[in-house]
């Protein structure tokens, strides 16, 4: 609401590694050398936004230009996070807006 100051909105960051795009036997607990993708989550009371990006285990670098998948859940209307609307939002506008 424009008549409200924008409170400092705390954000929590989580992450999870994956060896591949498709579930496989070591998807739950990939060893460092087998990690190829990292899922970075940013969450506030309003939403959870996750990007699964290419990850290089040799230099620990994540490449946010190489996005394998995305998730976006709006907590007020979807508290159980069942309806991923990441692909419903045109590229980047939402990300820019929430940032």
């Amino acid at each position: 609401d424009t008549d409200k100051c924008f409170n400092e909105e705390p954000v929590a960051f989580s992450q999870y590694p994956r060896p591949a795009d498709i579930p496989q036997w070591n998807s739950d607990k990939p060893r460092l050398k087998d990690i190829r993708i990292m899922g970075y989550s940013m969450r506030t009371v309003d939403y959870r936004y996750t990007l699964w990006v290419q990850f290089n285990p040799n230099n620990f670098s994540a490449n946010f230009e190489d996005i394998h998948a995305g998730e976006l859940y709006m907590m007020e209307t979807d508290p159980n996070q069942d309806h991923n609307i990441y692909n419903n939002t045109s590229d980047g506008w939402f990300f820019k807006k929430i940032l």
Partner: protein
Amino acid sequence: DGMNILFIVVDDLRPVLGCYGDKLVKSPNIDQLASQSVVFSNAYAQQALCAPSRVSFLTGRRPDTTRLYDFYSYWRVHAGNYSTMPQYFKENGYVTLSVGKVFHPGVSSNYTDDYPYSWSIPPFHPSTEKYENHKTCRGKDGRLYANLVCPVDVTEMPGGTLPDIQSTEEAIRLLNIMKTNKQKFFLAVGYHKPHVPLRYPQEFLKLYPLENITLAPDPWVPDKLPSVAYNPWTDIRQRDDVEALNVSFPYGPLPDDFQRQIRQSYYAAVSYLDVQVGLLLNALDNVGLSNNTMVVFTADHGWSLGEHGEWAKYSNFDVATRVPLMFYVPGMTTSSVTHGMRIFPFLDPFDHIVGLVPQGQSKKVVELVSLFPTLAELAGLQVPPACPETSFHVALCTEGTSIVRYFNASGAKVEEEEEGCD
């Protein structure tokens, strides 16, 4: 200033607690702690996996800085010689003690739970921990299995006890010693349950008749879930009872009835844990230390109970990353305690009482990586400085921020955060 710290960390506990609004669970002792505490309802782990989460919150660094995403490296060798929260308290005059599962045992804590850096004496591990994955679960045919769902007759267990029971006994023994030697202490107690196998005293099943147990509200794999986001719950598939069901990989699903049995045993394991916490807090009263000991209660990450067709942790879903987090600070979250007054009398979950509500509730989104600066501030120590962008070469700094600013200094009910202008 100079208060003791009792730090309780629970393995794989999601906020399935009365004080978090769960209507089914019986957790009167943890609810009683909450009634004297500030409770954070939006607290999250940095990664939903034991070792990375624990090394992260114990060093105050994120996984991209500890560079631990699995179980197989020790941050002091692999990433940087980061000071830990217990080490910091030890360097500030505290006796620091570890009981049970605080660091994840093995490579990630140098096979020593990071002793002697973090702890004043060698950490205690229950002798029966080694039987955790043995065939100790009695099947319908009377034979023993290594099951996921594993209510047991404790008298039949190796050593006639269970790891968490031993941990509580050791922690109480240490509290009695601390009372005598009058040194301020940082005592960390790590409970194993409700981590799998769901092995707990069978009497706790009586609290959760199977007919009262439902499926998860959303027990299907969401159609727009990217396949990379899904965790195929491989570890529970290797348990004898799950393996016998022969469910397909990776999406299953498990039979409805067995899903309800897993949920029933998770709840039963939580009530078993609640009893252990109740005995520990009752002992804190008994040694007369409740009035100058802060209590922190949290978990390393959550656990999916069938939501999104998933089980266990290993994902970025809230059910896998959200944790209980509460702080009891005498004179801050509650008015000062008169000496000798009981704050935490043991409450038997079988005589369940309802109605305990958190003293203060904060909906602010907070992170476990903030534990280190928060406890430093609460203890009156210098708060570690914020880390620079790259901090591999910095021994003492934190990538979290103290969340004491969300407490209410007067100890009165924490005001609901005002939306809008201050």
